[in-house]
């Protein structure tokens, strides 16, 4: 009878082990053919959906660009698989949205031309921005990521007509220190270059307003061309020039003026966990041993007291060493 019971127990143990091994194998059997993604797009590339919201493709004015300041550029769905609606096919895509505005997103996909997609609210906001430039933020920029904010009043005053306008050789302008005047929409991701500022050697500051230029002043990429010819330069009054120079001196590598915490990598303070583990290993475990070592020798059932005293001594040394280590760390 005892033999039967032992066999049954052994069989049960082996069955549990086999079941556990089978359970461990489950993840490796998971099918890779069914990506659990919400992003989908219509075959013509005009409508994008994230499962809950729908975005329509938005055509920017030719002189505006999706070029966010580096730190504003947040990939909500880094590399993802985009489902082509009505088909079984997927294509790899990168979907980005500015941290400040999830109504406007940027899509970069394998076979669909990169572009901007907006919700109804996003479309209204962008239309309003391009019509009025309201709610935009103005910045002096040098290169892609070095910028300094300037106040709206100063920026708008540059567009006013001043009496002193000189036609200047563009090859001479190319030699001067220069800054771009850029206006970003509310999202901080769509930029519209309004003109360039030039610092002359005599201390004067000139402004080339793109509104005053015709197509011959730009290259095929839409950038101001320094190849040949002249451009009208507005010489700014000294008070505006001084303000702009002061702003130009503050140009620095752009830092976000907000804190964005990506949900995928939340900041966790591990110190409490570390100290908890220290307390468990350093005090609770040896304390149990110490108590056992001190109290069990009194129990007649538990055998040789000398053995338990050895355990108690070791536990005491354990606590002392742990305390020394913790004191050093503190």
């Amino acid at each position, binding site marked *: 009878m*005892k*033999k039967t019971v*032992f066999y049954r127990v*052994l069989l049960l*143990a*082996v069955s549990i*082990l086999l079941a*556990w091994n089978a359970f461990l194998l489950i993840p490796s059997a998971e099918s890779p053919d069914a990506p659990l993604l919400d992003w989908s797009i219509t075959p013509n590339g005009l409508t994008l959906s994230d499962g809950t919201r729908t975005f329509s493709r938005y055509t920017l004015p030719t002189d505006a660009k999706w070029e966010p300041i580096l730190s504003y550029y947040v990939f909500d769905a880094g590399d993802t698989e985009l489902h082509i609606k009505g088909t079984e096919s997927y294509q790899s895509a990168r979907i980005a949205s500015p941290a400040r505005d999830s109504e406007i997103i940027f899509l970069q996909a394998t076979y669909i031309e990169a572009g901007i997609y907006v919700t109804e609210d996003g479309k209204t906001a962008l239309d309003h921005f391009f019509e009025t430039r309201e709610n935009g933020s103005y910045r002096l920029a040098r290169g892609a990521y070095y910028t300094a904010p300037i106040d709206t009043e100063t920026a708008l005053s540059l567009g006013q007509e001043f009496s002193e306008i000189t036609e200047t050789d563009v090859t001479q302008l190319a030699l001067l220190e220069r800054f771009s005047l850029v206006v970003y929409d509310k999202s901080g991701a769509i930029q519209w270059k309004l003109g360039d500022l030039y610092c002359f050697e005599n201390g004067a500051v000139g402004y080339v307003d793109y509104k005053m230029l015709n197509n011959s002043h730009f290259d095929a990429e839409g950038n101001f061309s320094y190849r040949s010819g002249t451009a009208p330069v507005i010489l700014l009054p000294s008070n505006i020039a001084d303000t702009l120079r002061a702003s130009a001196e503050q140009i620095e590598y752009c830092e976000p003026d907000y804190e964005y915490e990506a949900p995928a990598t939340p900041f*966790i*303070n*591990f*110190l409490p*966990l*570390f*100290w*908890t*583990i220290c307390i468990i*290993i350093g005090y609770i475990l*040896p304390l149990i*041993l110490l108590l056992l070592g001190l109290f069990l020798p009194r129990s007649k059932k538990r*055998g040789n007291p000398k*053995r338990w005293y*050895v*355990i108690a001594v*070791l*536990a005491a*040394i*354990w606590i002392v*060493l*742990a305390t*020394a*280590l913790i004191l*050093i*760390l503190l």
Partner: protein
Amino acid sequence: MLRKLLKYDMRAIWRIWWLLGLSAMGLSVVGGLALRILNNSGEQAFPAILEVFAGLAVFACIMGFVAFFIGSELLVYYRFYKNLFTDEGYLTFTLPASRAKILASKTLNACLWLVLSVLTLGACLIIMLAISGSLADFPTFLKFFFDGADVFSLLYILLLAVEGIIILLAGSWVSVGLVHFCITIGAVLAKKYKLLAAIGIYYLLNMVLSFVLQAFMILGVFATAGAIEPLFSALSETEIMFFIPLLLALIAVIVTSVALLIHYLILGKLERRLNLA
């Protein structure tokens, strides 16, 4: 009496172990030559078939080392089982020695052979690498390592090395103790098929322990990785110098305590629960 018990235990294992050890040494010579052929295959044109055999020889050599280690362990544990839990147990327990001394002898015997097996494997590896010519730069490395080291640094390294050796010895005591514990429990629980029961218990125990340890390690690694940088960057060089040997000493005490607990658990079972009738 402990010395006598240990002498006979060691002699019994030695009778077969020296053959295994010698075979492992022989294999290391063959492996070294094979490795030499593989190392020089770019400079000298060896027949392709020779290179294939050399590769196979290195593989066989490594398998042989593994077999030597497992064989050594099996010898020791089988003797423990046979001496204490089969009919031979009647004879063993009639010896004028306490069960504590018998267990101490078995444990010391197992630890010694574990250490000797590891040392033999180390020697085999050195022989293999020396014959293959891979150790040519080793003296330069040692010179570079110890060059310019003052007496204090050498003493500090010696202290760390001693602590490391104590941890390794205590660790081998734990591993031997775990196997002895499983064999003992298997023999106490099962009337027949005691070895099978011991293997099952060892597998179960190992699985449970590895789960617990892994969970603890993952938590510990996260906590340490996340917290150690700010904590350690605040420590001075002197504090770190004290911290490392203290940490090693703590680890040594923890491992020794675990080993001792396991040892006492086995002893408790041997003294009060074992019934060979």
